[in-house]
């Protein structure tokens, strides 16, 4: 039995997970129009390889990866590309981004895929290539290109593949449902991932508030006959944070500024494992995902498999949204999700939940009161930071102290703001402060660069001047030595030559009339 370690801090917000009936999965209708952002992942946007007016089939690549930190985009159904332009996307910034818009033709015709059942015969490079070609990016929320994660470099060796089935955010049950409905695929995917990185062990961690998922994964492990360890641990937010689940299950901490691979771990979400299985064994790209539609403003909260690119409004309508005049729609969960600013924005590879709460359910924050330094935030912080001090320094814009108090180790889980009796939007302060520090670092980099350029130029100019001076001195010395040898003053000789030339010119006009 594995020793379960406790993490510092954490909170127990109401879970509200039963609302979306985890374990029941239906398919959302294919929307009339799909909007597929070129960047659904962390990194460089994909490059469109279709033109307006092209007819595409389901599964067809419509945008190629550009470079390593990028993944391709595939059509989730058949239809016609109507436009490629900037559209509203689901992002905290509220900005628009380039999207390929497909009008579905209703036929839902697909390319035929060829997978490899015997994936053990393929080498890691081939498998990573297929994972990349399938457009897989971390489905837990960050959207980090999985192929990059699977290539940690020769300096790091992966001992254990850790499958993070925690899903500690309240309300969300997408992973819970996936673990119940697609457990066999999950186990196969995990084995493929472990094979790719030559991990010696596979460890699956699930919070103990999901007994059905635990039972289903347990049964799937037994059916597979593989040696996979399943560990359960007490429910607490934010146990599902990558750093947190690693400490819970291994007692080790990821070094500040490092990645799990530094301590021999690769951490993936269940959705990523299933997508990997489908990419390798079925040859199918990532075109759909499970989304939890929940909140009391929905008539029928549920989990659906939806086409990537489905407009948020279509899914909310499907779940029966009874909107208030002022409605908050949250992309993600209530702790770390962001409020959507345009319902025409589509769901993407990272959309695990759409939450439509009533005002009574998630009341709007009260006006913030002064910080009384009660320290509840420090008790709740899973990173053992001192949020009350960070808040103080963030308000004072004291970047030195913010760095000293390790602002950048904040994972923005929101536990501090949750427990704050003064209702201060602490995370907002930290995000802003991080942005300001990054800005000033860039500013400093720029000024450093121009100073270096200026200094280099000064050095160059001085060197050139010195060289010129040296050449002149050399010429002078050479001329003087020649004069000494010939007994003729070179300056006097030059004057003589010039006089002779002048005299020649004076007689020339007569020759040429």
């Amino acid at each position: 039995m594995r020793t379960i370690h406790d993490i510092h801090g954490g909170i127990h917000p109401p879970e509200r997970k039963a609302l979306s009936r985890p374990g029941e999965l239906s398919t959302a209708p294919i929307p009339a129009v799909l909007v597929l952002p070129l960047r659904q992942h962390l990194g460089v946007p994909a490059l469109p390889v279709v033109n307006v007016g092209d007819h595409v089939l389901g599964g067809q690549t419509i945008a190629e990866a550009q470079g390593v930190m990028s993944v391709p985009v595939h059509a989730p159904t058949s239809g016609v590309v109507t436009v490629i332009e900037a559209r509203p996307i689901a992002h905290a910034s509220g900005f628009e981004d380039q999207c390929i818009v497909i009008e579905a033709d209703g036929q839902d015709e697909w390319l035929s895929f060829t997978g490899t059942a015997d994936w053990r015969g393929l080498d890691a490079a081939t498998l990573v290539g297929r994972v990349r070609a399938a457009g897989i990016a971390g489905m837990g929320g960050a959207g980090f290109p999985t192929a990059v994660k699977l290539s940690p470099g020769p300096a790091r060796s992966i001992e254990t593949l850790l499958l993070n089935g925690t899903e500690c955010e309240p309300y969300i049950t997408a992973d819970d449902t996936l673990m119940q409905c697609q457990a066999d695929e999950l186990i196969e995917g995990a084995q493929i991932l472990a094979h790719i990185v030559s991990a010696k062990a596979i460890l699956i961690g699930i919070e103990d508030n999901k007994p059905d998922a635990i039972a289903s994964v347990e049964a799937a492990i037994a059916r597979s006959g593989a040696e996979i360890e399943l560990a359960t641990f007490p429910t607490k937010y934010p146990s599902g944070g990558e750093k947190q689940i690693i400490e819970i299950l291994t007692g080790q901490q990821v070094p500040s500024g490092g990645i799990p691979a530094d301590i021999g771990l690769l951490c993936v979400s269940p959705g990523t494992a299933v997508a990997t299985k489908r990419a390798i064994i079925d040859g199918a790209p990532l075109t759909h995902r499970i989304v939890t539609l929940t909140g009391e403003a929905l008539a029928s909260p549920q989990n659906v498999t939806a086409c990537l690119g489905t407009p948020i409004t279509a899914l909310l309508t499907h779940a029966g949204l009874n909107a208030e005049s002022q409605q908050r729609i949250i992309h993600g969960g209530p702790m770390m999700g962001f409020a959507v600013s345009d319902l025409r924005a589509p769901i993407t590879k990272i959309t695990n939940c759409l939450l439509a709460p009533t005002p009574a359910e998630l009341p709007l924050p009260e006006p913030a009161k002064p910080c009384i330094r009660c320290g509840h935030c420090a008790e709740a912080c899973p990173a053992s930071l001192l949020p009350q001090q960070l808040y103080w320094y963030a308000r004072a814009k004291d970047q030195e102290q913010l760095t000293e108090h390790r602002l950048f180790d904040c994972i923005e889980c929101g536990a501090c703001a949750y427990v704050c009796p003064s209702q201060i939007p602490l995370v907002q302060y930290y995000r802003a402060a991080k942005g300001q520090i990054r800005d000033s670092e860039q500013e400093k980099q720029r000024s450093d660069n121009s100073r270096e350029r200026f200094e280099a130029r000064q050095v160059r100019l001085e060197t050139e001047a010195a060289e010129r001076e040296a050449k002149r001195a050399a010429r002078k010395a050479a001329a003087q030595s020649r004069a000494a040898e010939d007994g003729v003053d070179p300056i006097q000789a030059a004057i003589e030559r010039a006089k002779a030339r002048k005299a020649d010119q004076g007689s020339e006009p007569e020759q040429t009339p």
Partner: protein
Amino acid sequence: MSLLKVTSPHASGQSRVSAVMRDVLLATLPGVVVLTAYFGPGTLVNIIFGGLIAVACEYAIVALRGRDPRLAVSDLSVLVTSTLLCIALPPYAPWWLITIGVLTSVLLGKQVFGGLGYNPFNPAMVGYVVLLISFPVQMSAWASPRGLAEIPGITDTLQHLFSPSTIDAVTAATPLDLLRQNTGLLFEDLLTSSPELTGWGGIGWFETNLAFLLGGAWLLYRRVFTWHAPVAMLAALAVCALMGYDGGSSQSGGSALFHLFSGATMFAAFFIITDPVSSAVSNKGRLIFGALIGVLIYLIRTLGNYPDAVAFAVLILNFCAPFIDHYTQPRVYGTGSRDS
């Protein structure tokens, strides 16, 4: 339908500043009841009169500063300040003493720095020390406990509040006074020499401290503060008292039990040094903060000129809190070596 743009987290817990302050006020009840039972309604009248002055003062000054005065008063913090100060004042204090103390606490202790959350010192202790230095006679006139003198009724008390000559007979020295003035008696003999010293910490004092301990334990249970500062302070005080006890000679500083359960010990441990605004922030820092207050209380009680020492000890450590904070930052996830 319009979309609301609110940043995460969207969920929030139940804790509120006003609820925290209300809990602190409720937790003083056992202590106030016992004080009233032993020393009469003086403390109760202090609290009510001081509370009225405090709310009026806070309302006026916040309005003057151009902020919302109702919001400021509704967080109950000003009532906590005035209540703590008024518990510390001698029962049957004259109206002007209470008024000066409350005004000093609210204005000089809190509002000049920017109000709630910005005060570097414990406001109640600022008011207390100003009074102690300015009006030592009135501040050392503690009431006689029940049994040694007649306890004034509520009418007498109210009369006394505004014409402070009516009940002079009630004042008496506190056990800590007697200990400090003791020159010739062994500690055990001292305890039997004077009727005020009956019991572990003197008549009424042991019970009062026990009641504040009870209120403090409830606040701990309610997680209003952590155990670190109170436990460190009590432990440090007890250790100092044990070291200075020398078996109870006339030079002895009094037993550990006497120090723990006399004077303002428990009141300080759970209601004064736990003020989060002016104390150290990390748990390790609070241990140091509390322990140093405990040591200072003992030193000032036994060597200093004032019978009780809480206010001075707390203010001195309030000065040190940022310094303590600087050296007691907790180890952040993923940094340094693990200590567990």
